[in-house]
């Protein structure tokens, strides 16, 4: 009896202390994150090797993300003090969804007061979204912070052009899209591959700014584009318009004056416009065509190991234990990191291979804990897939089907046999094969050696010269060379064993 009572007492005590700890913890985390980020930037001031810094960031980032994800929302929302809701003449309601447990840190609904939107607690303006953005986009806290600082409040002026660059799949487009949509400012997201001419570009930008993401407004030239921007800005009472141009390296090939004028849009329209260029190339490749104005550079580094694991664990399919999926993801990273660090590719591979990994568990052969057995099972598949990275020769559905077929037949450790060939293998007729061989020989061998190789008579052996010869470049490296038709025919006849008369059939096959 007393034991249960004491248990209950201790439980209640634990619950209370847990709650207060939780509250303290949330406050502390929030402050710590802010401080840590400021501290990190302070450390940036000194020269240091990037490698160390990024590795550090990765591990810390994972811990931070885990902390955030495990803390409950209700506690954090209680902590954020009530904000004053003063209606101002220019009212912008920040819309936020409440009570969504999947995402720590979403704020309450609030209205701006005056220009700053300063709440009592001092978390003002755009920084309200920082917490939620960081939890949605793990690994990119520093870039989000930089972007939020540089972009400024929508009513403030900002730098006229930004240049965002980084390797593939480092989250450049994702981060920009998320930030701009959560700030709820007028923005246009345009892909320069899709809009390959200036007119298309102007039309799409204007349509997006007006909120119609699939429309097109007719706009013929740069002066009319500028006028439309001005009239749009005048309607919207001085909010910054953000224009994001993805795959910005394509802008070089369009009009010569297009890139310089896009970078100066703010100056040309005398309104607040911010042009953000996103590209995988470095700025030096575009600088020549950019006419002197250098945008503010922002680099998105490649994800570190910790960040990759954190992001890929978000992909965990429902119903699977997270730690099990994490060990799998760990394996994938360890094997594939030397070959490919592209996050998109790694996620694709893990989605392909995970069912294979789970197979022995599902069939009951091994339990989830026997990682060594699971590893031995999955290793040959890893090896097979290794040669197929980036190629996407077959779709994932086909691959799965091939696996099933292969397993139902004999067990083989080589994947290559199971994969259906997508490359066409032609069976050429007899003479065509010889013609092909003859043309290959003709293209790669220099014509001087023809006599040596292909003549049917015996040649008198020339004395070997004693002078050392210059190392000739490997002809294979130089690629095939053009050759005249009679040379081809001469080689063809010499390699063919029987005597064949030249006939229309042969010549047509040459064609």
């Amino acid at each position: 009896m007393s034991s249960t009572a004491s248990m209950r007492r201790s439980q209640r005590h634990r619950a209370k202390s847990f709650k207060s700890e939780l509250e303290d913890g949330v406050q502390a985390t929030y402050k710590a994150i802010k401080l840590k980020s400021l501290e990190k930037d302070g450390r940036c001031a000194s020269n240091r090797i990037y490698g160390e810094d990024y590795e550090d960031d990765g591990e810390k980032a994972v811990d931070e993300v885990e902390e955030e994800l495990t803390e409950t929302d209700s506690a954090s929302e209680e902590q954020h003090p009530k904000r004053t809701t003063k209606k101002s003449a220019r009212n912008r309601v920040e819309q936020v969804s409440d009570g969504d447990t999947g995402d720590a840190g979403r704020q309450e609904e609030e209205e701006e007061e005056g220009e700053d939107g300063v709440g009592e607690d001092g978390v003002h303006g755009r920084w309200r979204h920082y917490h939620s953005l960081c939890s949605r986009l793990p690994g990119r806290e520093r870039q989000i912070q930089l972007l939020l600082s540089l972009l400024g409040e929508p009513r403030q002026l900002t730098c006229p052009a930004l240049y965002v660059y980084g390797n593939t799949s480092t989250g450049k487009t994702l981060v920009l899209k998320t930030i701009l949509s959560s700030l709820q400012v007028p923005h246009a997201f345009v892909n320069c591959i899709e809009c390959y001419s200036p007119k298309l570009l102007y039309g799409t930008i204007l349509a997006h700014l007006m909120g119609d993401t699939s429309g097109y407004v007719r706009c013929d030239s740069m002066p009319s584009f500028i006028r439309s921007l001005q009239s749009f800005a005048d309607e919207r009472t001085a909010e910054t318009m953000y224009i994001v141009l993805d795959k910005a390296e394509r802008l070089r090939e369009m009009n010569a004056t297009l890139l310089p004028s896009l970078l100066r849009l703010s100056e040309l329209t005398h309104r607040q416009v911010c042009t953000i260029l996103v590209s995988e190339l470095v700025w030096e490749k575009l600088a020549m065509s950019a006419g002197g104005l250098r945008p503010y550079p922002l680099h998105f580094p490649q994800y570190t190991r910790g960040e990759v694991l954190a992001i890929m664990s978000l992909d965990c399919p429902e119903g699977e234990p997270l730690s099990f999926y994490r060990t799998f993801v760990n394996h994938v990273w360890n094997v594939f990191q030397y070959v490919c660090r592209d996050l998109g590719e790694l996620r694709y591979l893990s989605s392909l291979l995970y069912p294979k990994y789970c197979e022995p568990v599902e069939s009951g052969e091994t339990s989830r804990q026997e990682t060594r057995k699971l590893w031995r099972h999955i290793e040959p598949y890893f090896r097979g897939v290794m040669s197929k990275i980036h190629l996407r020769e077959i779709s994932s559905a086909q691959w799965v089907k091939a696996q099933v077929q292969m397993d139902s037949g004999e067990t083989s450790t080589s994947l290559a046999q199971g994969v259906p060939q997508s490359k066409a293998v032609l069976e050429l007729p007899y003479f065509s094969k010889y013609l092909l061989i003859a043309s290959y020989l003709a293209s790669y061998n220099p014509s001087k050696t023809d006599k040596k190789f292909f003549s049917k008579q015996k040649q008198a052996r020339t004395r070997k010269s004693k002078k050392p010869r210059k190392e000739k470049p490997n002809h294979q490296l130089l690629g095939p060379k053009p050759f005249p038709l009679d040379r081809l025919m001469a080689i063809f006849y010499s390699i063919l064993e029987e005597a064949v008369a030249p006939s229309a059939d042969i010549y047509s096959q040459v064609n």
Partner: protein
Amino acid sequence: MTTGAAAAETLLRNRLFSDLDDGGYVPENKKEVLGTVQQVLERTIVESEGNSLLIIGPRGCGKTWVMDSVFRTLQGDRRCKDNYIRVYLNGLVHTDDRLALLEIARQLNIDSDNEEHTSMSFSAALDYLLAALRSGSGANQSVIFVLDEFDLFASHKNQSLLYNLLDISQSSHNPIAVVGLTCRLDVVELLEKRVKSRFSHRQLLLFPHSEFRDYATLAQSLLSLPINFKQRQFRHEWQKNIQKLLQNAKVLQALQQQFRLSADVRSLKTLLLLPVSRLSPTHPQLAPSDFSLSLELIHRDSLGAVMKGLSVLELCLLVAVRQISELSCGEPFNFEMVYCGKQWSSLLVTPRYGNHSILQL
């Protein structure tokens, strides 16, 4: 104070990104240019004489700023205030004479029919526009044409816009002033003979700061808050902080590095952007680390940073490519050669990697 920092941030951003408010400090070389331009434009407006001049200077050193300043002063001057119309053309935007003409018509507030203009020749159209202007108001209104990226106008067909504008400025029955802004020193060589002869050859050169002292003073004036700033206590602390900062070694080093790389105003403003944008209630004063961080971000080695994100295989490919390019001594080569070559196969030591095709590089 929370609103103090936010208000300071807004004000400083206005300073950095618009030419409206410049903190009041005008370096010596600019004062001369300002004075000359103002004189010339006043003569055009008040005495109805035609004028043309060119302002030449490298990018970011303040040509557009000079024009904006002069127009602000003219607005304040009683004699000139309502007697002129400004037409602003830009070589990047108005890439054709026809577009330029439409823009002129629009800026002169003349309702014009497109068909009429295409049928007339360029000079007739321009005369028509200016005559329409004259008949609209009683006295002669002077028109000031500001041509930005003047060198691009010289690449239009026949340079007809330039020829006509300069012709009108010489013949003086319509008082106009043509001010060209360009960054090419040899822009006069680009003009045709007939255009060059009508140009008054008045060229003003604008150079960026030649001394670090000027540069530092400009930085200080850009960062100082004005006297009429609302939160007095905040302003007091702020000014003290700025004074301290400009003695700080780190800040001076950052400013000096930027000065050595490019001494113009635009690059200074780019350097100051990050410190200003990081103002927040938790960080209400500028710190020396902000400046060093800003310098580091702007001048980061972008190629090195991108290369750090490559996988080992991609780096091997790069090494093989480098070796082949040395071997082939500048002759072109392609990926096939790299794959077949022994450099690549020697780098792939473990057979585990196999033979891959990386299509993205």
